[in-house]
């Protein structure tokens, strides 16, 4: 039994694990990926890209933590016990305190051609390149919304990609306001600016269609009433981020507006279940770290120490609010899908078919939207934006698992 079980080995999870272990708790961290670091520090355990990442990896190594990689939690068998599937079989995880640091994924919006191979998420393409995809000399259009686009473009360029342009849907006006409030982030922004010298950054611009037969060949872009085509090898396209909340929902934690609700100590509506990082609302690296620290300290009963971090969290929350206002999605993006554009990629359900329904439940029953292997993880963010529908409930298993795992969970 772990004193503290942490789900997710990204910045929030690692910070929670470190603080809890430092306070003397027996800590287990479970992560779906083959190595710790989450998405932002993916593949950086051996070779950190920043002093901050290096610092946190050193901290983690300095304490006694059990790290289980390649394990995906899919079910709760009883309060305090979760099941995870690993390549070796099912493992049972029991805990006194739980920290949900499940992160976020990109929001994908449908437009004609978005299902073509080589149309990927912005973070999606970056993850592939980080894990071995050669990108040198490839022509890439980076599009969508959010600060991730800049980081991805800079990373891809550093690996030899020809980044043709960055299309940010947010308007120049909103971005200018954001820049104004960016004081604490200036150094980061400047270093990106240097890495992106010569790359066009087009605000108020978005992809209206991707073209190709068996794979992507080019995209149509739209800006200020003008449309034009660009040939490219990859489109890296994501519209900011959506919190991963399905595990929190499975455990009956209150989720509002797509974010896990927490108190000042990062505790959810369920006692001894904490949540930190992007799962509680999109706020970036620094907010994730401080929330993780607070959750880890609170789980260890160190409430005074946790309180000392509240001012830092408050400051980061202000930044997060500004960030989310700046990159709010414009209404025009709702007009992108054609009736025949696929929205649910697992079941190939089109926009035209979904439009006939008044709720996700009705659409699910009639079309199977969101009922394929991804269980709405991709189309959920899209239908929320397009129709205002939100998933009503989650059911175990929260991920497709092997039959053996299902049998084990029923025992």
């Amino acid at each position, binding site marked *: 039994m772990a004193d503290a079980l942490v789900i997710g080995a990204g910045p929030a999870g690692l910070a929670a694990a470190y603080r809890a272990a430092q306070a003397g708790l027996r800590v287990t961290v479970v992560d779906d990926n083959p190595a710790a670091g989450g998405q932002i520090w993916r593949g950086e355990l051996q070779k950190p890209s920043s002093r901050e990442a290096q610092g946190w990896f050193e901290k983690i190594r300095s304490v006694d933590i059990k790290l289980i990689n390649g394990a995906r939690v899919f079910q709760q068998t009883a309060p305090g016990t979760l099941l995870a599937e690993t390549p070796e079989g099912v493992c049972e995880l029991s805990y006194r305190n739980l920290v949900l640091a499940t992160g976020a994924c990109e929001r994908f919006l449908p437009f004609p051609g978005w299902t073509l191979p080589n149309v990927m998420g912005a973070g999606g393409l970056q993850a592939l390149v980080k894990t071995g995809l050669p990108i040198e000399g490839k022509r890439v259009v980076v599009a969508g919304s959010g600060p991730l686009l800049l980081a991805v473009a800079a990373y891809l360029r550093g690996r030899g990609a020809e980044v043709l342009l960055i299309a940010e849907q947010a308007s120049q006006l909103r971005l200018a306001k954001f820049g104004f409030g960016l004081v604490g982030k200036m150094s980061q922004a400047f270093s990106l600016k240097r890495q992106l010298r010569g790359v066009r950054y087009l605000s108020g611009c978005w992809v209206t269609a991707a073209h190709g037969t*068996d794979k992507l060949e080019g995209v149509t872009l739209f800006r200020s009433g003008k449309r034009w085509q660009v040939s490219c090898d990859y489109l890296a396209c994501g519209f900011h981020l959506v919190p991963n909340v399905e595990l929190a929902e499975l455990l009956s934690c209150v989720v509002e507006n797509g974010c896990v609700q927490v108190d000042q100590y990062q505790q959810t509506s369920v006692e001894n279940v904490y949540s930190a990082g992007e799962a509680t609302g999109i706020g970036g690296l620094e907010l994730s770290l401080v929330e993780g620290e607070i959750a880890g300290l609170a789980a260890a009963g160190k409430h005074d120490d946790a309180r000392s971090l509240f001012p830092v969290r408050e400051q980061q929350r202000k930044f997060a609010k500004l960030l989310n206002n700046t990159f709010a999605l414009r209404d025009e993006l709702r007009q992108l899908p054609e009736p025949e554009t696929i929205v649910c990629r697992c079941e190939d359900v089109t926009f035209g078919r979904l439009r006939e329904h008044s709720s996700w439940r009705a659409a699910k029953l009639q079309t199977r939207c969101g009922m394929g292997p991804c269980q709405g993880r*991709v189309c959920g963010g899209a239908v929320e934006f397009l129709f205002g529908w939100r998933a009503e409930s989650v059911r175990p298993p929260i991920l497709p698992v092997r039959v053996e795992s299902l049998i084990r969970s029923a025992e």
Partner: protein
Amino acid sequence: MPETVTVVVNGISVTMPAGSMVSAAILKTGITAFRRSATGEPRGPLCGMGRCFECRVTIDGEAHCRSCQTVCRDGMDVRTDG
């Protein structure tokens, strides 16, 4: 630890840096269709982090493996369904 690993994708050998994911190895061979969708469209990786299930392929005989979450091992037999 050796610096490279070699996997076999649809009968084609491809050598990758150690620690690479199967999804990257597949794309390196020039294959972009990892699977066919319910209506027969070619599909490839989207999210790169194990959530979209678009990158699933058969690995060493096991169907529906997410190639973006599977690290390449020497001699691994990978089959796409595209």
